[in-house]
């Protein structure tokens, strides 16, 4: 189907260990979905596998973007089709300036060199939205950034590259409340009919600021429950144990 990110019966292993055991998930354009679950459930793995991390082996299943299978594509090909992963642990790339990196990435995303004025307009808009300083553009990519700055930089890239589908992998972890609000403001500004996000988080906290349309819960490598925003609140209140029992009993 067009206009959606679809995961169909996805089985994945890493260094011989099975991590995903038949994930099914659909995120239509125009919606924001949250992906919750206890530690080790496979949430981050799912994010990396969708982005094409070569360290993981897909054993079975398919990933479709707008109806087109992307399971075997290189990470850069997926990105050029409009997919974006905000890393849980953004990588430091010393020697590469943020502005140069963004210009190269945007050129690849657009398929042509962006006019310099348009490029700087995009940068300015994104930086203002994140209440950041332009000084960041001349710094080396993530080098010497605090944990919060690294997360903010992921959102800066999101805002400049304007993907259609974004996966945010624990973008909230390690953020204080002000940084959390800033990051949420960035993501919310992207919301609209041509944007979908899968927000991976361990806690309900972020979802107070990025209110999801749908909440999925993963356990032991599968999506075990899907519901509305109230599901996140219930998990916050009751933890995951009741759900584990429910799944075991089913």
């Amino acid at each position: 189907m067009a206009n959606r990110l679809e995961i169909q019966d996805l089985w994945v292993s890493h260094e011989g260990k099975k991590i995903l055991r038949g994930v099914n998930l659909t995120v239509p354009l125009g919606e924001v979905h949250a992906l919750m679950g206890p530690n080790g459930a496979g949430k981050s793995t799912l994010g990396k596998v969708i982005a094409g991390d070569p360290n993981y082996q897909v054993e079975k299943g398919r990933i479709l973007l707008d109806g087109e299978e992307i399971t075997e594509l290189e990470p850069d090909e997926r990105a050029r089709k409009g997919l974006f992963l905000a890393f849980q642990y953004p990588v430091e790339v010393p020697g590469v300036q943020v502005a140069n990196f963004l210009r190269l990435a945007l050129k690849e995303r657009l398929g042509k060199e962006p006019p310099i004025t348009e490029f700087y307009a995009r940068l300015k808009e994104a930086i203002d939205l994140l209440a950041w300083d332009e000084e960041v553009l001349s710094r080396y990519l993530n080098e010497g950034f605090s944990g919060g700055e690294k997360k903010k930089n992921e959102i800066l890239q999101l805002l400049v590259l304007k993907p259609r589908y974004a996966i945010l992998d624990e973008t909230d972890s390690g953020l204080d409340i002000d940084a959390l609000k800033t990051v949420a403001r960035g993501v919310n500004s992207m919301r609209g009919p041509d944007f979908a996000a899968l927000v991976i988080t361990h806690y309900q906290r972020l979802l107070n600021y990025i209110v999801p349309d749908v909440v999925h819960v993963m356990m032991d490598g599968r999506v075990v429950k899907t519901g509305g925003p109230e599901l996140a609140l219930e998990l916050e209140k009751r933890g995951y144990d009741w759900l584990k029992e429910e799944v075991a009993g089913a």
Partner: protein
Amino acid sequence: MIEVLPTNPEKLAERLGEPAWLKEARKGAAAVFEAVPWPSRKTEPWRYAAGRLKNVPFDLPLALPKDRTLSRDALPAVVRKRLEDAELAGFLVFLGPDLVYAELAPELAEKGVVFTSLHRALKTHPELVEANLYKAIPAREKGDANDKIPALAAALWTYGAFVYVPADVEVEKPLAAFFVSEAEELEISRTLILLDDHARLAYAEEHLSESGGQAVHVGMTELILRPGARLVHANVQTKNETSHHLYRQRALLEKDAALKDLAVNLGARFARSEVGSELLGPGADSEMLGVYFGAGEQHHDHYTLQHHVAPHARSDVYYKGVAKDEATIVYQGLIKLEPAAQKTDAYQTNRNLLLSRKARVESVPQLEIAANDVRCSHGSSIAPIDEEQIFYLETRGIPRPSAENLLVAAFLEDVLGRIELKNLARHVARVIEEKVRI
């Protein structure tokens, strides 16, 4: 490898119209050549390169000057291209052993700056040449295998550049010499750069090829820095990948003299580059940068020497490069401190980036310290390209070749950023970018 000189050095001296002292020097060098063995694996500075020498066709005919000249428009295309983005106060172009073109800003000539071929200087400034030639690189240093190639070069050089900057004269824009190999010959060149007290100069020598072929080039460059002189010097080798290039450079730094050197190896099948500085006076300062990129089956072999004779001097070697495909990269370096060299600051760093599993790098920094009140450090590293960084860049839509290019540029950024000749640094970066992509 050859055991007998292909040409009689005395006859060569006569043919080239040289003075008696030079004829004698050539004769003496020939005797050294015949007395010492070729470097072997046991010759420490040649540990990884000696094996390559047997593949170098030293038996090619010796390149002899044919007195050709060219107009600026008729210069080889590789040189004309380089001239487009170089802002120079003067330059020489050697096609094979012929100085085919020379240009020098008239105001520099008026100030007494000399920039010409070494043979021309023998006629116009005989006493300057006689007093300084073979001073930094004698035919015989220790009488061992390390002298073999310098002895060959001292006996049979047939062309090269001469630069003299008088005391207190500052040459603001750089000078350059372009050495273009064009035939399958044994080319032996010699460059002498002499900076008088407090003179200042920036100078680049570039070694290029006009065509394919297995030319062998043996080049010796002597740098003589009188007290307070400051020299920015670059040696950039971008020759075709079937040629052989053996280069030795030695700088003599007197009191408060400063050298900022750059050695670049990007081309040639086998390139050997020996760059040494002798810190002879207190306050002398030698910064030695190196940049290399080996691809295909290239072998780039580097040797650096920081020889501290005087106290209170400083030297800093920073060599960085990349090995791709099945290339071999070698770095060997020695910091040698004499007993009198107290209060020395000497540093030596070599960093290597591997773009392929089949590429090989050897990195051997060494210290030999006979003084006790000194600050010395050395370090080296060899690391493959970071796959996490590649993946991160790929997830932003950047294809792997571009991501590799970005990471190579990032890796070399600090050393390229330290190059004083900015146009040259951009040229080097462009050549490297092409080499990553191919």
